[in-house]
């Protein structure tokens, strides 16, 4: 039995269809991240699961119950928002107990749950403050606490870290992951446009673009075997290198050819059989390129060096186009130096130039 199941759901605003027959199954205890650029419909999907948005057709199941027509409060969910959405005129304690009060929970039970959640999130000392007396990170902790006391089976996060600065974002990201591990069987659905958050948090990532699911898979699958050009380009920073070329058949097997650059594809795991002469795009992640003495592709020159401490990104070109290489931060690199690149065939991706799909 899956914890959350979106079955053939269509959401429409007036004539505009946001989703057309979208389906998604989420297992119990799973951490699912909905990843995509703004406007891809990820928040709409989350709102539909929460019941804050009516679906035009299809069903939403949560915990084995069809909740399509149920109010948000009856769906067994809790939600955390980007803008924290704390009630400004209530203290932290009142914020956290508001939902339980609405549900007519006994006072002692409310106090117990608020205390427990506050301990877990280390906000016990803030319970009597008002939201405007808290920092951004503290506010989001309180918002998570408010979700926590609901004892919900499913947690929905709508870009919860996007309003925080980089340092706090990293801290809270780890904390959310720790929370998920500690709660055990709680299912989490997390919406973000930040691929780092998606990679670090998710058991499975759902990549969305223009209201369509592009790929569903573990972070590793998404990163190493992206299903199409969009996923390949969206996930990973610095971005994957894309090189246009074609497939040529030779005695030893198919080969990728782009101008002077060639790459034998004998060890490449094809999804579909390539045709000789087919126009393709080769995708290589910057860290899968090697600066080698006797590499695959000679004749490059260093353009620009971006040191990042632990590693560095070298932009180099051979007159046909620029390529990024990620290498150790300790390497010495000076612009203008000639370079030979080694390519690991086991790590590259090939896409059809026509459809953008992986081949």
């Amino acid at each position, binding site marked *: 039995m899956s914890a959350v199941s979106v079955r053939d759901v269509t959401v429409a605003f007036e004539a505009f269809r946001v989703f057309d027959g979208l389906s998604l199954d989420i297992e119990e205890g799973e951490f699912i991240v909905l990843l995509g650029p703004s406007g891809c419909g990820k928040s709409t999907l989350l709102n539909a699961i929460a019941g804050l948005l009516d679906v035009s057709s299809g069903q939403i199941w949560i915990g084995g119950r069809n909740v399509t027509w149920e109010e948000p409060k009856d769906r067994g969910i809790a939600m955390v928002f980007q803008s924290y959405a704390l009630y400004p005129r209530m203290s932290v304690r009142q914020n956290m107990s508001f939902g339980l009060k609405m549900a007519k929970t006994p006072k002692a039970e409310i106090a117990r749950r608020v205390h427990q959640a506050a301990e877990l999130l280390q906000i016990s000392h803030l319970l009597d403050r008002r939201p405007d007396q808290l920092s951004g990170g503290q506010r989001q902790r309180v918002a998570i606490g408010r979700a926590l006391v*609901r004892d919900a089976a499913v947690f929905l996060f709508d870009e919860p870290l996007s309003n925080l600065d980089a340092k706090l974002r990293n801290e809270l990201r780890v904390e959310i992951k720790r929370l998920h591990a500690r709660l055990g069987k709680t299912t989490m659905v997390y919406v973000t446009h930040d691929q780092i958050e998606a990679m670090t948090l998710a058991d499975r990532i759902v990549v969305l673009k223009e209201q369509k699911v592009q790929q569903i898979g573990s972070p590793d699958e998404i990163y190493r075997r992206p299903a199409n050009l969009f996923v390949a380009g969206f996930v990973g920073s610095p971005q994957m290198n894309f090189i246009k070329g074609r497939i040529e058949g030779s005695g030893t097997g198919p080969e990728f050819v782009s101008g002077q650059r060639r790459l034998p594809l004998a060890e490449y795991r094809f999804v579909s059989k390539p045709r000789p002469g087919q126009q393709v795009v080769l995708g290589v992640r910057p860290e899968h390129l090697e600066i080698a003495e006797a590499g695959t592709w000679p004749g490059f020159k260093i353009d620009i060096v971006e040191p990042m401490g632990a590693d560095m990104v070298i932009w180099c070109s051979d007159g046909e186009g620029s390529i990024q290489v990620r290498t150790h931060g300790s390497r010495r690199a000076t612009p203008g130096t000639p370079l030979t690149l080694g390519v690991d065939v086991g790590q590259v991706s090939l896409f059809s130039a026509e459809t953008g799909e992986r081949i």
Partner: protein
Amino acid sequence: MSAVEPHGRRPRHLTIGRIGIYAFLITAALFFLLPLWIMIVTSLKPMDEIRLGNIVALPTAPTFEAWTKAWSSACTGLECNGISVGFWNSVRILIPSVVLSIAAGAINGYALSFWRVKGANLMFGILLLGAFIPYQVFLYPLVRIFSMTGVYNSLLCIVLVHVIFGLPTMTLLFRNYYAGLPLELFKAARIDGGGFWTIFLRVILPMSTPMIVVASILQVTGIWNDFIFGLTFAGRENLPMTVQLNNIVHSTQGERAYNVDMAATMLAALVPLVVYFVSGRWFVRGIAAGAVKG
């Protein structure tokens, strides 16, 4: 001439343009302050002194006699109980009208901006249209409706009229204010299990203080200054202060008692005057909120 090394605050020079601006501002201020000055000094003079004709001069022996007379014994037609009757009538009209119209406007604005009722935009459009139709058009139909339903010429009648005519502005004011609140707050409250009234009373209304203040200012001054609705709908027993002021000024026997007229006018203007002075900043804010956002 040695050049001065620029440091610290940039020096300001009095330019001709600046002098012009000040001259204009002072003239404008005088233009609006002079009538008030004349009214106050005249109301403090006895008639003998007024007859001398120095209307701008300070009173030689200030007396509050005219004020007392205006308040308690000036004649408004046949009765001579002063303007105090009208004052209390106005208060009785004002309080329920202000409270009810603000409540109705806040609920309307809340429903329109958060609950996305079907046809909400159309309803809002019609309501706004109502705000632009001249009041005079409604007078006769309303008189007919009220007399048919039997509430004509009563306190209830005048309060209803003020609530109805306050609705477009109040709704606009609150809808625009609520449109600026984060929608996520409302979503959070729905997940927490709040219904229409709970969310309004527990979450939204506590955040509405600035708009309630602004709406109160608008409604208090508007309703207090109203003349035509009071004259038409309130009935003889409940005539507001503005109508009684008009009666005092126009029912003169023999010599016109300028000092009493001025004192009565000042008394009638006191409430809006106090409201403006106490809340000038909020008032401007309210006008801006109502006018700028669409």
